[in-house]
């Protein structure tokens, strides 16, 4: 589809405007969009992203269980109210203590992912390390199956079997 303004480039931006029930459509290229000042602003800095995520979290009154609202980390004395204010956690244990509230936030910040896949400290106990390897292999297997790379999938399946023994 050609751009409706310059009639030269391909239209890559498609706008639909509805004013008083009347619907108008516009198909334009990026260059004309910039000239018309209707380019989509795109970049989101990480801190803004976080504060946006925090803002869409239910407020304290809306939290499902009052127990979560009043929860205090036994290790560092941290509360959810403080997290909302500061945007950082109080101690490593907070990830478990406030898991219910943090999980949806973590999911949003990390492209729907919720489990680590990557480096494991050499000092991690053996079973943890093995568990992580298995987790990583399974994720790779999932990706291989989705991209229909069955040769790789078969290899990964063998590796998983080996690891599990």
């Amino acid at each position, binding site marked *: 589809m050609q751009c409706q303004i310059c009639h030269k480039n391909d239209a890559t931006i498609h706008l639909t405007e509805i004013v008083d029930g009347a619907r108008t459509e516009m198909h334009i290229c990026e260059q004309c969009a910039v000239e018309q000042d209707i380019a989509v602003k795109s970049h989101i800095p*990480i801190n803004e992203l976080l504060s946006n995520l925090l803002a869409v979290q239910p407020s304290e009154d809306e939290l499902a269980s009052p127990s979560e609202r009043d929860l205090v980390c036994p290790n560092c004395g941290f509360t959810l109210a403080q997290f909302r204010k500061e945007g950082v956690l109080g101690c490593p244990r907070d990830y478990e203590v406030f898991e219910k509230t943090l999980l949806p936030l973590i999911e949003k910040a990390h492209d729907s992912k919720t489990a*680590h896949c990557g480096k494991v400290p050499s000092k991690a106990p053996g079973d943890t390390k093995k568990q992580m390897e298995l987790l990583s292999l399974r994720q790779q297997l999932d990706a291989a199956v989705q991209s229909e790379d069955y040769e790789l999938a078969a290899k990964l399946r063998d590796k998983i079997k080996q690891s599990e023994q």
Partner: protein
Amino acid sequence: MELTDISNDINEWFDGSGPLSDIVVSSRIRLARNLAGYKFLSRCSNNEKSEILDKLRDIMMSLDLGDKVFYVSVDKAPTLNKHFLVERHLISRHHAFGKGPRGVVIAQREFFTAMINEEDHLRIQVLKAGCQISQCARQINRIDDMIEKKVSFAFNPRYGYLTACPTNVGTGIRVSVMLHLPALKITGQIEKFFNAAKDMNLAVRGLFGEGTEAASDLYQLSNQTTLGVSEEQIVSRFEKTIIPEIVEYENAARSQLLRKQSDVLDDKISRAMALLQNAHLISSQEALFLLSHLRLGINMHRHMGASTPAIEKLHALCSADEPDKASPLSIATINRLFMLTLPAHLQLNYGKPLDSTHRDALRAQIIRSALNQQDPRKS
């Protein structure tokens, strides 16, 4: 070791060398780590922070990095030194102007720094010239292994390395590349880059300027997802998908300038030369803006064989850094001018604080003398 030992020149990571360096100026990887058995910094008293600082500083200073390292106590440093470290990309603004006992360990060649007590207990970074992301990854992984032999980091099998902010949890890795994209800007297509970054879930930040529209046309592109993807996957995505795509956009815009808008290109380069060679007062923003166009001209000559009248004139200019050899103006010289004329660099090298008019005069003088070196072959 004093900051003035490094402040009067640029280091390897900014000397314009390395793969794809006409567009990818430098590559950086940062890892966020916290000590197991300690609270995160927001809940630490100053005594606890000092304990963490001492412990990590000793470890960082004893690492075998193949280079001398030195330590700067950031909380006790004069404001000018803090600004210098931020300008130099050795610490974050957050670290410079944060609270409580904190510091940074810096390798003399600047390829490695370790911020202690920034947002996390430890943030190490490796910095290299050009597109060398996997090289950065290998080196930082080795350094991380060395550190892990001496301390245990907070780690949980489900969430990986635990960080103060959940946006860094998992690998704790932040891969960033510094990109020079002047042609996308001149041809009005910089939005294309912003949109591509957004689609790929990457963060963009303008460098050496205010806001995202960097006067220097230098942008930093970083990953945002740190959980559920491995370090290798993130690095390979940058090298195989992200960088080639952005480089292709910028190169297409450079070709377009050359083929269809060579008068626009020549105007930008000629104006930049005229102003930089003659101005007596120049602000940091203006200098960055004009130097960016010289950088574009030199790179188009070197990498695309471009030879418009203005590019030829620019190429004939000699670098004051190598007067004996009468070498053509190099990217290293332009980068040196970029860095050394930033406000804190100027003042640190001058030896005392200067008001903005004096800074503008000194900046103009440094640039004039670097660019007005006459070509001895012509005289």
